[in-house]
Structures are given as C-alpha cells and as structure tokens.
C-alpha cells in the first residue's frame, strides 16, 4: 500500500529532485498532500481524482497521503499531478511498483490528458545528474527534455499512456533532439539587417563597438530617427550563441514557460523590449511563491532594450544597477532565495528633451530649460555610470532619406565583432570564461588598457577640460580598448582614445560626468 516515484521541482534556475511517496491506509476517505506544497500543488487533488476516474481506474477508498520529500523544500508548479496520480495507482495495486529509474512530470486535465508544464529542461538536467534512465514528460515538452542527451525523453499524452508505459505495456520511443544542427543553421540568421537602417553612420559605428565590447549603450535623438530600429539590430551583430549559452537561455525560458510548444532550443539571442509601465517584479523577477525570472533574466545573453528610458519608473531603473554589475540577480523572499543569471547588453533610447526636438536643425524645441533638466534628472547618475556609450541619433538628412546607398550588412559587421571578441576572450582567458571589455574591473583596466605617451597626453587634456570623473576615465579606456580590438591592434592609439571620448556622456551634460 506504499509507492514511491521520482519527480522534481524548479527552484530558481536549478531543479531539485523530489521523491513522491504515496500511502493508502484504512480509515475515513481523505486525500492529503504534505511536504511543503504551494497552493497549486494542494489544489491538484481535485484534478488527480477526476483524472484517475476518467482514465478507467478507480480512485481508492481510505486514507490517502502523498508526501513530497525532502519535506523542507518548497514545491510549486503543477508538474506533480502525474507522479502523484501514478503513485496512488501503484499504492492501490492498480499498477505494479516501479524500479524508480524514471522521472515523471506533467499536469493532469480532468479528463486524464497530460498538459505541458514549465521548467522541464532543468528537471531533465537534474535527472541526468542523478543518473536516471529517462524522463517521462508531456509531449509538448519532449523536445526540450531531449536536449539533454544523457537521459531518454519519453513523450506521453495522457495518464493512461503513462500507466501503460509504467506497466511496460507500451513501447514509447524516446525523443531525439537535433539541437546542435538547429543551432548551426538557425543561430546565424539575420532578420533585422543593419544595412536596412538608412544613414546614421555614427550610431551604427557605436552599435558595432557596443557589440564588440559588450558595452551598454544609450541612444539619444528625436522621434522617428531610427533608435528602435538600430537597437533591434544589435542581437544579430553579436556572435551567435554557443551551445552552452543557448542551453542557459533555454533553461530560463523553460522556467518562465515561454518556450513555444514543441520547440527545443532557443537559438537566437533574446531581444526584450518591456514597456515603460513595467513593475520592478516584472523587470528583475518575482511573483508569488518561488520568484520567477524577470525581463533582465529573459534578456540573458541578449539585449534588453528600454525605449523612452526616462519614462520608466525610477525605482525600476534603480533595480537594474546591481544586476548590471553582477550579471545576475539574487531574489530573496521569506524562506527562499534564488539566483537568476542576467548578463545582458542594455540599450536605452530617449529623446533629448520632453518634446523631442532639442538640437534639431528644422523643428524648434518647445521645452523650457527647466523641463529639459527635470526630464534628464529622471536618470540617476549611478545608472548612467553603467552605460559606456552615449550616442546621438539625429534626424535623417533629406539626402540620407532618399539615397539608395546601403551601408555594410549585419553579417559583415558581425564578422568584425566576432574577431574582436576572440581577441578579448584570449586576453582574459586566465580569468576563466568568456569575458568582454565591458566587464573589465579596475584592476583589469589597469592591466589591459595601458596607454602610450601620446594617448595619455590626449586623455589627460580631456580629463582636465571636460572634468571627467575617475569612473568616466575608466569608461573611456574600456571603450578605447574595444575600438583597438576592432582594428586588431594590441596597442591603444591616440585615435582610439579620441573616438572613445566622442561617446562620453557630454550629450547629457549637467546630469552626469
């Protein structure tokens, strides 16, 4: 009258295997789920009962207890429906006991169908780490489970299917994944070609530098100049995702339940553009129970684009500071804390003033100086400090608008970016991992951004003249390092420093150094 099966729950980005124990004993007919279940798990009782009855089994009389062990881990999600239902069937003798070599996960519909759940990829990875033989998952999740080639992924459609599999009556062929092939063929695809953006040569150059060094970028210009178009091109200027990176991104999307049904690997770098009204929980992650990933984690290894940057809630923008530094976010709630990766490139876009036309050669700006100051003050100094490149995106000239001349395409730019990135990876190899210039700390800047005599003189003059802060100084050096890497020279020349100085925050003079 006792059964045990393996299932699991997702905590943050990792999964924890859970043993589902079912016991049926004499007594009044009760059905309890114990072991720190969240609300959705306790609610599963009604689904399980109906699903069992509607799958041609009988729901046993007596006292039924399902325990989820270890009992001190909070369990959320609806994936326990299937293992608990199977556990009840085994405990009541309607199914033979199992060897416990498989992990079961799935939500039950009242008619006994198995529905897709989120977080299957981390579960499959955890199952592989524990040397389980396979995972039994809803059909819609099979492709993502199959990404883990150390376990078999068995797709099932209903409780009856799962029961037949457990009995050994049915041969369920495990799913195979063609992920690496998919990654090879699809990751390089270009959907937003930078050649399609007219004019804006300087902004395109800045975008290339941002891509090459992993720098954060702020685009400033009047409405309609092409800021959003430019931002949209950035993910495809970055080197294609490696398999490990793609797996990391897929993990996050799996947990968030954002994988399309039947799709396996996320092969393209994410581009997230949340609306200005986003809450801080939506941005950094949160929600009831175990906190889920926010936009900054969904943009992991990709681009987070914040259009109309000053319109965002100040509190939301301030929450970005720490993840921009740490490249991950730790969400702590009572009794639980989870860490999500959040290594993204930030691209902000804003108008130069509330009406948008300050400095425009044709349309006059209607804002008072006070309005302009108030508008810009919405961006705090500490946030702007984390942005390396400030770029003006002016209104397109009439010639640019009507010319048919196209600049270099995304593919060409990406080749240069990849070459520059390889130089950086090689240089920072001893740090363990693939690092970009934007991630250089004070020590890194000292070691890798040494200047000769001529560039030093230039920078010294600029520092005195523009009143550049120590942090601004390091920023210029990092950008200059990337510009030199793009050119393929190890030495940073005066020309590189001069170009880097162009991308300082002088556009927002008076609000930040």
């Amino acid at each position, binding site marked *: 009258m006792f059964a045990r099966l393996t299932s699991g729950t997702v905590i943050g980005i990792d999964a924890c295997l859970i043993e589902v124990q079912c016991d049926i004993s004499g007594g*009044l*007919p009760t059905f309890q789920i114990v072991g720190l279940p969240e609300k959705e798990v306790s609610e599963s009782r009604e689904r399980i009962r109906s699903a069992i009855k509607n799958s041609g089994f009988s729901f046993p009389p007596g006292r039924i207890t399902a325990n989820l062990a270890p009992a001190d881990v909070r369990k959320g999600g609806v994936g326990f429906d299937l293992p608990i239902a199977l556990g009840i069937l085994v405990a009541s003798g309607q199914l033979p006991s199992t060897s416990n070599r498989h992990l079961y996960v799935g939500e039950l519909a009242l008619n006994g169908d198995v529905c897709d759940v989120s977080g299957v990829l981390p579960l499959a990875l955890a199952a592989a780490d524990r040397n389980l033989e396979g995972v039994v998952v809803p059909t819609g999740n099979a492709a993502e489970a199959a990404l883990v080639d150390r376990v078999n992924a068995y797709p099932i459609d209903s409780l009856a299917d799962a029961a037949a599999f457990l009995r050994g009556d049915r041969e369920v062929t495990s799913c195979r994944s063609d992920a690496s092939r998919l990654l090879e063929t699809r990751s390089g695809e270009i959907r937003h070609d930078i050649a399609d953006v007219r004019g804006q040569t300087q902004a395109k150059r800045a975008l290339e530098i941002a891509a090459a060094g992993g720098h954060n970028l702020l685009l400033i210009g009047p409405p309609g100049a092409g800021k959003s178009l430019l931002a949209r091109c950035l993910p495809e200027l970055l080197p294609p995702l490696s398999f490990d990176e793609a797996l990391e991104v897929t993990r996050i999307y799996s947990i968030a339940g954002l994988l399309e049904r039947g799709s396996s690997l996320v092969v393209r770098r994410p581009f997230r553009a949340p609306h200005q009204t986003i809450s801080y929980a939506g941005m950094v992650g949160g929600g009831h129970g175990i906190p889920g990933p926010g936009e900054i984690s969904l943009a992991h290894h990709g681009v987070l684009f914040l259009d109309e940057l000053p319109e965002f809630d100040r509190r939301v923008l301030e929450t970005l500071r720490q993840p921009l530094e740490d490249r991950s976010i730790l969400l702590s709630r009572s009794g639980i804390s989870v860490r999500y990766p959040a290594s993204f490139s930030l691209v902000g876009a804003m108008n130069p003033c509330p009406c948008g036309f300050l400095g425009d050669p044709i349309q006059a700006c209607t804002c008072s100086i006070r309005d302009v100051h108030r508008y810009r003050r919405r961006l705090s100094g500490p946030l702007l400090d984390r942005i390396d490149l400030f770029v003006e995106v002016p209104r397109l000239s009439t010639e640019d608008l009507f010319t048919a001349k196209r600049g270099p395409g995304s593919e060409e730019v990406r080749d240069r970016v990849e070459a520059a990135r390889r130089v950086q990876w090689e240089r920072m190899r001893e740090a363990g991992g693939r690092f970009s210039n934007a991630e250089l700390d004070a020590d890194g800047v000292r070691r890798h951004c040494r200047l000769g005599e001529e560039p030093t003189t230039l920078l010294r003059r600029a520092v005195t003249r523009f009143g550049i802060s120590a942090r601004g100084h390091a920023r210029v050096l990092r950008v200059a390092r990337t510009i030199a890497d793009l050119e393929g020279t190890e030495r940073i020349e005066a020309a590189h420093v001069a170009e880097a100085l162009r991308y300082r925050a002088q556009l927002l003079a008076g609000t930040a150094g």
Partner: protein
Amino acid sequence: MSLSGEEAERLACLYLKEQGFQVVARNWRSRFGEIDIVARDGATLVFVEVKARSGTGFGGPESAVGPEKQRRIAATAGQFMQETACELPARFDVVTFSGGAPRLHRDAFRIG
C-alpha cells in the same frame, strides 16, 4: 412519488444487499448525528446516506447531501470507526430514489 424516510432506508438496504453489500448497522447514532446505513463492500467499509426525496435534475449526490450534513456524517463515521476499532478503508456512498427506483452513488463525497 414520494417515500417516507423509513421506507426509503428499508428499500435501500435491500438494494445494497442485492449489490453484494453486507449491512453492518442501521441508524447508527453519535452526538454529531446519525448514519443511515453502515455496510461492507468487500474490504471497504461504506457509510451510506439515504435520500428519499432527491430525484434527478437537482444536481448530483454531493448536492443532495450538503456540506454541513457531510461534516456531520464524517464526524459520526469517525466515531464509529473508533468505537469498533475498524482499520478498513472507508467510503461514503449516497442512495437516491428516482421514480421509486434506488440508485447508488459510490464515493459520493470525501473529507477535506
């Protein structure tokens, strides 16, 4: 047509025996309330509530026995199991009458 409560319980008993149940007790009382029939269905102990006037068209057996009544039956059943030191798995059934014919609703409700 309508049956008196007592008549309905008598008919229900006969019907249960036909279905292979063994009637253990009738009108078993505790301070919480009363259970119409206690029976055994194989290795399962069954507490049966008989509803004389509940026809079809007025919802299922759960609605025939309201939540308050369910609580009372459950408490009484608990008492019964304690007093008889019964360790069998238990079930709650409801017998309804539609057009004079008894109908058995197995596992009509559960506790909690």
